[in-house]
């Protein structure tokens, strides 16, 4: 090749050309992913669509009823409700987008590839931002749209209100999402070593602030829970979220204006006002995009270099005493099993993505359960809330068992040359995963269920029943995830998230959900009938279902279900794993 031909081979491309190339890249990736999903993961796709529709419909129904209720009492609390809701989501969006962008801009192989190509940092940021923005918008729209549509329907809003919903929501999400990106790039560039601590403190502070706000708001008028006075007092304390400089206020005000009609039925004045709020949102979103582009141009490469230049983590010795204790306590025969447990425990501790999600989800549940005491429920109603809380704990646990426990056997399969050559029976590998999942989930779940019941003021026998159900759920969910993980391993895949999102992982999640529903229903129905009829027959045809014997029968069924959900998948998994040929 001559120098002349080389000069012709490459040239700096313009920002518009760069954007077009990345847009095409995104299109190709999306098309290919969609084709793969339609071809290989129809079950998962159908489930996602079905569950999303179910979730949307349930939320819509809930909000529809709620707005009817609120409208009939004190319609003026709606702006407060909107402001509180959107300002909370705004804080969460800043963090979630920041975390997504951290991964996308710095830690993925794609980030390293893009840094070695002649792409500008601003374009790389925009490319990764679009993905983070899409994820953030999707969650926000799924959560916010049923509420806003329900409000429009209840209020009889004009058609343009429904048309403006999407532009308003998208323009709003862009602001906290961009702020998250700016914070992320600044933090990585200037505080690379303390980024995890800084983020933890910020997330912790935000959660504490939200908890404090919720706690102080709803701690009022305990004696008259759900009354008009209670609502008024509670929402008046949320006035702090009505700051006019907050994008959440622009969004709330713009939407309320769009839904409003003048007394003569005219909508033009309100529509104009609404469009002004939309313009403010869009203008701020665009301004922040410019700022983010500038920050990316100046700090993105610096931050990436800082991260690449970080020293590997020092040897972790802080918990070694616990590992030593666990591996040495017990019989010599059980030592291989305990050593496998210690290995998994160490991996869990050192994988921030695992334990941080565990802490965040269970921490949020803990906050909710702690605040549940401020609602003064009737006894039978409180027991049902207790069962709902039990179901929520089970569902959260099932997402963890599917996401983190299900792929464990597949990942061991990839490293089979290590374990396969050790003097360890294959069964012990499967049992170690089960014990890891069961024991790891049991403690936090039982504490959470206990906390919920104590805060609801439930009787001891009800707490004991809930705890028994919780033990059954932990064992069953662990059995399902480990058993199916061993029965349907994906030995080619190295990414746990991809293993979990395959057919086996989806099936595990579906079976886990059905198991949770079965356990909770089998126990909740007789308990509710027993409490509603105060333990005595009321002469109806369902009287038998509310007797102490029925409650005991329900408990026995729960234990049988738990045993079956543990033993059957594990037996299948053990059988398959013994014959596994990696």
């Amino acid at each position, binding site marked *: 090749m001559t120098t002349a031909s080389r000069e012709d081979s490459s040239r700096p491309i313009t920002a518009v050309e760069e954007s077009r*190339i990345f847009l095409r890249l995104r299109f190709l990736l999306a098309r290919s992913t969609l084709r793969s999903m339609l071809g290989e993961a129809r079950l998962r796709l159908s489930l996602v669509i079905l569950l999303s529709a179910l979730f949307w419909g349930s939320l819509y129904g809930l909000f529809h009823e709620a707005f009817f209720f609120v409208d009939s009492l004190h319609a003026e609390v709606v702006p407060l409700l909107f402001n509180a809701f959107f300002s909370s989501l705004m804080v969460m969006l800043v963090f979630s987008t920041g975390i997504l962008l951290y991964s996308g801009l710095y830690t993925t192989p794609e980030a390293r590839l893009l840094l070695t190509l002649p792409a500008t940092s601003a374009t790389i940021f925009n490319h990764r931002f679009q993905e983070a923005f899409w994820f953030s918008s999707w969650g926000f729209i799924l959560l916010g749209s049923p509420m806003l549509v329900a409000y429009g329907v209840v209020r009889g809003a004009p058609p343009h209100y429904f048309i403006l919903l999407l532009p308003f929501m998208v323009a709003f999400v862009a602001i906290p999402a961009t702020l998250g990106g700016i914070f992320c790039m600044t933090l990585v560039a200037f505080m690379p070593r303390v980024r995890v601590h800084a983020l933890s403190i910020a997330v912790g502070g935000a959660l504490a602030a939200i908890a404090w706000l919720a706690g102080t708001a709803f701690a009022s008028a305990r004696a008259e829970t759900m009354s008009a006075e209670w609502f008024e007092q509670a929402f008046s304390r949320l006035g702090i979220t009505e700051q006019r400089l907050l994008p959440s206020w622009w969004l709330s005000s713009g939407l309320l204006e769009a839904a409003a009609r003048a007394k003569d039925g005219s909508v033009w004045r309100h529509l104009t006002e609404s469009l002004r709020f939309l313009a403010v949102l869009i203008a701020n979103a665009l301004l922040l995009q410019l700022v983010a582009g500038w920050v990316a141009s100046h700090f993105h490469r610096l931050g990436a270099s800082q991260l690449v230049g970080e020293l590997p983590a020092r040897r972790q010795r802080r918990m070694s005493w616990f590992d030593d204790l666990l591996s040495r306590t017990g019989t010599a025969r059980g030592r291989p099993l305990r050593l496998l447990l210690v290995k998994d425990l160490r991996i869990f501790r050192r994988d921030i993505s695992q334990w941080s999600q565990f802490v965040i989800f269970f921490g949020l549940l803990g906050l909710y359960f702690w605040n549940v005491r401020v609602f003064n429920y009737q006894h039978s109603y409180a027991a049902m809330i207790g069962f709902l809380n039990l179901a929520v704990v089970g569902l959260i646990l099932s997402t963890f068992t599917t996401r983190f426990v299900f792929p464990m056997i597949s990942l061991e399969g990839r490293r089979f040359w290590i374990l396969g050559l050790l003097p360890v029976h294959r069964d012990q590998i499967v049992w170690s995963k089960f014990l890891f999942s069961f024991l790891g989930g049991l403690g936090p779940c039982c504490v959470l269920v206990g906390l919920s019941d104590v805060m609801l003021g439930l009787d001891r026998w009800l707490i004991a029943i809930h705890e028994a159900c919780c033990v059954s759920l932990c064992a069953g969910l662990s059995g399902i995830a480990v058993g199916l993980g061993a029965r349907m391993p994906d030995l080619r895949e190295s990414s746990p998230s991809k293993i979990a999102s395959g057919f086996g992982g989806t099936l595990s999640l579906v079976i886990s959900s059905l198991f949770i529903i079965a356990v909770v229903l089998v126990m909740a129905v007789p308990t509710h009938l027993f409490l509603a009829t105060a333990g005595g027959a009321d002469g109806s045809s369902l009287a038998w279902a509310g007797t102490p014997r029925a409650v005991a029968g329900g408990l026995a069924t729960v234990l049988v279900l738990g045993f079956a959900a543990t033993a059957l998948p594990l037996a299948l998994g053990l059988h398959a794993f013994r014959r596994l040929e990696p």
Partner: protein
Amino acid sequence: MIEFSGISRSYGTKVAVSDLDLTIPRGELFALLGPNGAGKTTTIKMLVGLLMPSRGHVRVAGHDLVLDPRGAHLHLGYVPDEPCLYDKLTGREFLWFIADMFGMPRGLAERRIAAEIDHFELGDFADDLAESYSLGMRQRLVFASSLLHDPETLVLDEPMVGLDPRSVRIVKDLLRERTRAGMTVFMSTHTLAMAEEMADRVGIMVRGRLVFLGTVAQLRQHGAGRSGTAGTGHESLEQLYLDLTSQTGAVAPR
């Protein structure tokens, strides 16, 4: 041309690369050797713009990697030790993405993509998704992508990992052909035979310092001078390398 001027890079208190001054002219194939942890990867990361030096400058075709990364990257091709591809793109789509990023004219890109697919024998799987590729197939595709825009400088980090003997031969022939045409090649490798066969000059790095810089023949002479015997075979080169890399603080003539 590649220029390292007074380059140093530290990780905390640990010095990974210290006072590296090195110029590799057009048309030279340079092999950087050294034991694990010697600073080779740090040097390559600074050369491709993934890492900024703590001190000094790295220039590619006259463009400073820190001040003008985009200008430098236009003249740079990079084959990392772990090939990175988009799993949901086909090989051909990936090549088009790279060609577009380098602003290659449509017709030229089309011809080059066809030529590289042919050259690296990617035809059978160029239209399959990259997620189905083996390590060797991925490595060949990355090679093809790094050469599409006919860069002035090619940086290779352990380039033969995962390649079968036939692909190794293709790569070796290609490197010879391109260096003859004026391309500068900077290669990090653990394979002494590869360096001996291909490199115009070798550099040996130990604990962040370049302890030897010269041709393989000079390395042999240097070893003979030290031991009083002339090295002849591959074993003796290996011994020379081992002797050099086991010396702590001893700086060989450069």
